[in-house]
């Protein structure tokens, strides 16, 4: 990399304070090149044990970003910078409806006419998870359920049917972004393997995620300045709670109650995330209640979490989260804000009052069980 150097104007004279609210990733020290570029490693390798993808793993191409996996998308990615460009892998039982209907379902999403059985048989073939898969490379106007049609889109996809199971690898996005991604998509699809990621925890491991006890959890990351250690959180949920599909920006979500009408989750944000007072009053606003003064916040009951006292709230009212379109009349909310070094954890539970009355002790115990994993 040597070359002719130009030593004029070489002094760096611009110096600025580090912005406290800068993204945590920028303040992380000790990341390897593989971790920095997200290349050739599953997210569990790079970030230390999400433990959620469970049954499948794959090599993530350069320029892709891992998105939280879910039961519907065990492997889930954003392609490049545009959030409209995504790729994922999923499986469906009962054959998923068959090869031809699925091919034509994707073609319909791209506003393209259907293919006959003979035409589908002529489609190029690739391999997906060791099974023969038809390969689709489609251009058109993309419409998915409930969304506005988007012109000049591209879809790359692989569909394999093996017995009762259908396997799908799919990438959609604006055509200009996906133009150079075919090789990446095929490499990703070729790398998909079955089997739990060994870094995510094995069945029987009390710290395991989905593979073992769904009520024991381990997830998240905490990257410390000047320290290459990556830590994760762990917790223990009550037996009566049911693990719900994962959602972005949440470490875990559970449902409780006879009809799973209560929702409880843990979210993690960087820094103070607005602070205890701001967040508790934001929750009170969601419940239609007046904000508390700083002295009232100080007087709230507390629970001991990781050796520190964290305020806990119980708010009755009509829950109105207009951003998410959720409303519950006569509801109860339990909440706890846990400052944890350079991160803040939020534990929140909402449901109808009559169903929540029996959950208070469960919520407290769940909150107290949260700890940093070794």
């Amino acid at each position, binding site marked *: 990399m040597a*070359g002719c150097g130009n030593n004029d104007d070489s002094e760096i004279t611009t110096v600025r304070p580090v912005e406290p609210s800068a993204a945590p990733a920028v303040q992380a020290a000790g990341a390897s090149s593989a971790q*920095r*570029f997200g290349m050739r490693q599953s997210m569990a390798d790079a970030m230390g044990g999400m433990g959620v993808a469970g049954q499948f793993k794959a090599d993530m191409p350069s320029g892709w970003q891992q998105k939280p996996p879910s039961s519907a998308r065990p492997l889930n990615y954003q392609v490049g910078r545009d959030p409209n460009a995504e790729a994922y892998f999923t499986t469906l039982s009962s054959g998923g409806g068959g090869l031809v209907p699925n091919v034509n379902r994707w073609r319909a999403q791209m506003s393209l006419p259907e293919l006959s059985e003979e035409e589908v048989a002529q489609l190029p073939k690739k391999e997906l998870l060791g099974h023969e898969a038809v390969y689709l490379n489609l251009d058109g106007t993309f419409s998915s359920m409930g969304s*506005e049609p988007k012109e000049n889109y591209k879809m790359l996809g692989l569909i394999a049917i093996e017995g009762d199971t259908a396997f799908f690898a799919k990438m959609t996005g604006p055509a200009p972004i996906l133009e150079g991604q075919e090789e990446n998509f095929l490499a990703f699809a070729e790398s998909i393997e079955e089997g739990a990621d060994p870094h995510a925890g094995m069945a029987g491991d009390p710290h395991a995620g989905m593979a073992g006890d769904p009520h024991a959890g381990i997830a998240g990351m905490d990257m410390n300045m000047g320290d290459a250690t990556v830590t994760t959180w762990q917790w223990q949920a009550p037996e009566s709670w049911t693990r719900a599909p994962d959602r972005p920006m949440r470490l875990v979500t559970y449902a409780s109650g006879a009809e799973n009408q209560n929702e409880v989750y843990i979210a993690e944000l960087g820094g103070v995330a607005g602070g205890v007072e701001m967040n508790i009053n934001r929750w009170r606003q969601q419940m239609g209640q007046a904000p508390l003064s700083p002295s009232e916040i100080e007087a709230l009951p507390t629970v001991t979490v990781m050796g520190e006292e964290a305020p806990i709230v119980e708010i009755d009212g009509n829950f109105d989260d207009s951003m998410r379109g959720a409303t519950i009349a006569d509801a109860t909310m339990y909440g706890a804000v846990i400052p944890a070094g350079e991160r803040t954890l939020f534990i929140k539970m909402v449901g109808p009052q009559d169903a929540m009355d029996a959950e208070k002790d469960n919520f407290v115990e769940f909150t107290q069980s949260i700890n940093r994993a070794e």
Partner: protein
Amino acid sequence: MKALGIKLFRFFASYGFAVVVLFFLLLLTLFGTLEQVNVGLFEAQKKYFESVFLVHYLFDVIPIPLPGVYLLLVLLFVNLVCGAIVRARKDWKHPGMLIAHSGIIFLLVAGFVTYHYSISGHMTLYENEQASSFQSYYDWEIAIAKAGGDQEWIIEDTRFKHLRENESKEFNAQGLPFTLTLSDYMRNSMTTPAGPMVEKQADGFTLLEQPLAKEAEQNIAGAYATVSASDGSSQQGILWGLARAPWTVTVNGENYLIDLRHKRYPVPFTIALENFTRELHPGTSMAASFSSDVKQIEPGGSQRDVHIRMNEPLRDRGYTFFQASWGPQNAGPGDRLFSTLAVVKNPADQWPLYACYVISLGLLIHFGQKMLTYIRRENRRRAA
């Protein structure tokens, strides 16, 4: 000499000159708009609208040298000053056209100030997040910070984006115990593992230059970097705009973080997003309206609540925060959303509006007087 000066003045002040300039403006607008389809808005704007001269390829084959819009607007400014102000008949009883032309000149000045002195970018926040800076869509910078430190050294991309293959430049600073050498800057790049036969690589990875994206904000800059300490040791790495974490180097037992990121512009206050509201059209995931409730926090601690929505930006101290967009676009119910505020700092922010007022006033006066003159003449004719 005086005669030459008068001839030049008359030339620049002439209607003919104005017509020629306007014709070329029309031509450049047509060519630039068509070219945008191929190269994207950012590149088309640079080539056709921000240049002094350019070469346009008619039918992609025939080279045609043309003046750029920047030069044409300068010439139009000269033409208006000379012809519409200096040389124009000064009839103070009929000031309309003088006022209107002054408004047009003001509009051109506003454009000049905006082009040279405005900055723009975006601030993207999830609820309960806050920021005291906004990021450029296109420009980059390298930030160097000591791990755990409270300050960072900044190298703007104007100092290294000219470095092509095998070209390098050294940087050093008081307080940094090493020299940073940058080389092989790429405007759009991707990283990939490097095999043993790849000549340029660092830590098992190499940079591959990519074609420029049509949407310029999707270009990911990259460069090779070498840190050289006074003890003769050196470390080599890759700086890449989409890296998940900065490059860590250890010098004299201390960790330093080096990050290639979009250029940040500090703002003299903090914006904290308290609540983002999105209303969807019924039965769809298409937003009908979206707005942000933010807290503007001063360094001294005072704060105020501001509601930002479409056409209702936050304006303060020359900064304007517009509600631009939100995401992720494929968010489902219950998903956490972020709000993107477009931020502009433009000394001439409101000047185009004022210029339009002046032009409107001038035309109103001019045509109003014309109409009165016509009515009086018709009345006299009928009376006669």
